[in-house]
């Protein structure tokens, strides 16, 4: 390669892909090669800046890129070949789309002359992923590669983050032409609004200064914006109680007296109660998802709403906002805090005490399991208690995910990875792998279910071969627990096809050992702490601990799908006692009685 800047640098498209990734500061790519991406894999072998992690399934590459992105705040990158290689990324792209994870997927495509002929491993991956990517490209000329990759990273990481797919035809990878790194983007239709409008900030401030029962409803947007510090400052100034959605459990420490926990279908009574009885809901980076609101027309019935989000389409989508604020969560929280600093704020101590009382009375808990059986909630809380302070927690999807949300210690930003919007079973193992690569100094604990684990555990081989010492706790209850819980409650206990018989097959210890891990099985309560401690000490290999737990443990509290959040149950048929005062206020302000 000529170093003389006056001479054009001639490169193949494949070399341009690698050179572009280097210029963009990419340090790791998760992928699996195949025919249509082979030209790019060739120069990748020589790259000094970009490390490649060879996964065992492309879905693993996608979730690993997500895990890397959420744990580090940088763009996660995955790579696959055309056809089935590319379609195996679809679930991860969709997951990243719903949870706004910055990710770039590079896929090989058949040569441009074969496109449209149903050539071997040709798939219209651009068409397939259009509804589940923030944007995507099909590149058929080498000269277009640097600009497309630069734009892909820009789009993925700015505004509301999301996945971007760049599909590159094989001939474009093979052609030789001049490498020009773009000085500017060609994106006239893409200008995210980051600075909140002053008038809206002022209106929001006025509402906060008038509110008697305000609550901060904090979502994943605050995590994505890296705005935990700004949130903490606003809470310091105002003393407003905080509910953190599933996606934002790590942005406000649970041990803060103003932390009310997670709202929604399996939320804490304090968080649900705070929203239902608030006179002002200040939503930041949250999107009024149905799992949070329950029946929308009865959600937070007395509240005015300030809705701040970087995506204007989220504002007013589900709930009308009295004050809409379009902008980056960090800038918005800063501006609001600046505006309120030094102002005389209303006394909301009665409201705060009421919620704190509720938090104490109805702290999420669990019933003791039958004698001799392990309680999954206890297991998860012990993992949290014994984990080092810098631990990153990753979950699968289902009951164990809800328990992990409630019972793990949530202290630091970028330490909680979970599949929220999509609810992707199989997320845990590969996402934990990506997080560990992004944060090699941190301890990474994955809390997975026996169902989820059987979807993507092959990535433990990748971990073993690359010295990625993630720790996976399989909460083995033998069944697809969350589905079984619904069958228990709403399908007359007809457990249709939810019994996985995980007590028979697979033998998780043998399987994990075969995959290159150290593995333990825990069946007795007195073994729990010692085994977790041993797992914490192993740092050169992945560790799997199978906890054989009680099958019928349930996730409480719960609001049934489609029901009002007012009908939250703390156990089967048991509603919380909201207290007379709260009840009177609710009736008075809503102007109608509540059903019992």
């Amino acid at each position, binding site marked *: 390669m000529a170093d003389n800047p006056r001479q054009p640098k001639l490169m193949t498209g494949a070399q341009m892909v690698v050179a572009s990734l280097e210029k963009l500061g990419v340090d790791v790519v998760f992928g699996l090669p195949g025919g249509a991406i082979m030209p790019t894999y060739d120069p990748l072998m020589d790259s000094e800046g970009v490390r490649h992690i060879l996964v065992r399934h492309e879905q693993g590459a996608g979730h690993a890129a997500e895990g890397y992105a959420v744990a580090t705040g940088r763009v996660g990158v995955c790579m696959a070949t055309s056809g089935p290689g590319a379609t195996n990324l679809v679930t991860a792209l969709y997951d990243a789309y719903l949870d706004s994870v910055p990710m770039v997927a590079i896929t090989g495509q058949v040569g441009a002359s074969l496109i449209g002929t149903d050539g071997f491993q040709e798939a219209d991956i*651009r*068409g397939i992923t*259009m*509804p589940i990517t*923030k*944007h995507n490209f*099909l590149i058929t000329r080498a000269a277009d590669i640097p600009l497309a990759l*630069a734009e892909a990273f*820009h*789009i993925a990481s700015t505004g509301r983050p999301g996945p971007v797919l760049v599909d590159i035809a094989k001939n474009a990878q093979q052609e030789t032409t001049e490498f020009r790194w*773009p*000085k*500017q*983007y*060609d*994106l*006239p*239709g*893409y*200008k995210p609004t980051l600075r909140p409008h002053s008038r809206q900030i002022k209106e929001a401030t006025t509402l906060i200064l008038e509110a008697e029962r305000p609550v901060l409803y904090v979502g994943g947007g605050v995590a994505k914006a890296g705005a935990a510090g700004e949130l903490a400052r606003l809470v310091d100034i105002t003393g407003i109680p905080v509910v953190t959605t599933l996606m934002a459990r790590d942005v406000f420490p649970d041990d803060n007296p103003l932390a009310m926990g997670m709202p929604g279908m399996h939320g804490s009574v304090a968080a649900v109660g705070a929203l239902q009885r608030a006179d002002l809901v200040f939503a930041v980076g949250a999107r009024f998802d149905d799992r949070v609101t329950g029946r929308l027309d009865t959600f937070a019935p007395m509240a005015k709403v300030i809705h701040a989000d970087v*995506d*204007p*389409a989220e504002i*007013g*989508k589900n709930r*009308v906002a009295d004050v809409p604020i379009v902008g980056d969560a960090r800038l918005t929280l800063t501006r609001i805090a600046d505006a309120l600093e030094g102002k005389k704020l209303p006394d909301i101590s009665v409201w705060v005490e009421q919620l704190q009382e509720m938090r104490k009375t109805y702290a999420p808990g669990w019933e003791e399991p039958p004698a001799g059986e392990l309680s999954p909630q206890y297991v998860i809380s012990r993992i949290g208690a014994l984990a080092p302070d810098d631990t990153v927690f990753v979950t699968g999807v289902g009951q164990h995910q809800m328990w992990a949300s409630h019972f793990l210690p949530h202290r630091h930003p970028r330490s909680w990875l979970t599949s929220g919007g999509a609810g992707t079973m199989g997320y845990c193992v590969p996402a934990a792998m990506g997080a560990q690569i992004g944060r090699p100094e941190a301890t990474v604990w994955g809390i997975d279910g026996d169902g989820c684990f059987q979807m993507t555990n092959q990535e433990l081989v990748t971990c073993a071969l690359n010295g990625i010492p993630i720790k996976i706790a399989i909460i083995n209850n033998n069944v697809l627990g969350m589905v079984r819980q619904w069958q228990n409650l709403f399908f007359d206990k007809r457990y249709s096809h939810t019994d996985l018989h995980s007590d028979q097959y697979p033998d998780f210890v043998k399987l994990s050992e075969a995959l290159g891990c150290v593995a333990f099985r825990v069946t007795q309560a007195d073994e729990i702490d010692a085994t977790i401690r041993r797992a914490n000490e192993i740092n050169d290999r992945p560790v799997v601990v199978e906890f054989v737990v009680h099958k019928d443990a349930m996730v409480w509290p719960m609001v049934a799908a489609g029901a009002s959040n007012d009908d939250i149950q703390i156990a089967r048929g048991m509603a919380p006692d909201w207290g007379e005062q709260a009840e009177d206020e609710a009736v008075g302000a809503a102007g109608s009685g509540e059903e019992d």
Partner: protein
Amino acid sequence: MTSTHILSVLVVNRPGVLTRVAGLFARRGYNIESLTVSPTNDPQVSRMTIGVDVDSPSTLEQIVKQLNKLIEVHKIIELEDSAVTRELVLVKVRSDLENRSKIVDTVGLFRGKAVDVSHESITIEATGGREKLEALIKMLESFGILEIVQSGRVAVNRGASALAAKSSRNGS
């Protein structure tokens, strides 16, 4: 009760953009009432005129916001009720020597014209707003319509203001 609104959308002139716009409507359950796409005076930019049926103003707001999120969409405006809208219709009518002049007379009232004629048929071309074209078709029905093909709407606001693309480059 649904109401129809007309959106004028400037988009990048690249393959796949129509799929993306149409796909967005399909995925989110919005109904396209009419859609035309055509070049503009800027070869980089195409203009879509989209008629949408919505049941509430908030649905229209969502459609505009979601369209705005597409990277290829430069600009969207909702046209005013007073906008000039036109459609083109070609109607093939059963016709013989006897009634041919009657048909041509009728069409003349709508400032349409005959563009093809045979022993058994006559094909009429007309342009105008939807109501006018509906009235013309109603008049022709009595002669026996063999075939109708109608374009989507094209529309533009009245007055001097024009829909121009945003400046075409961002800084990096």
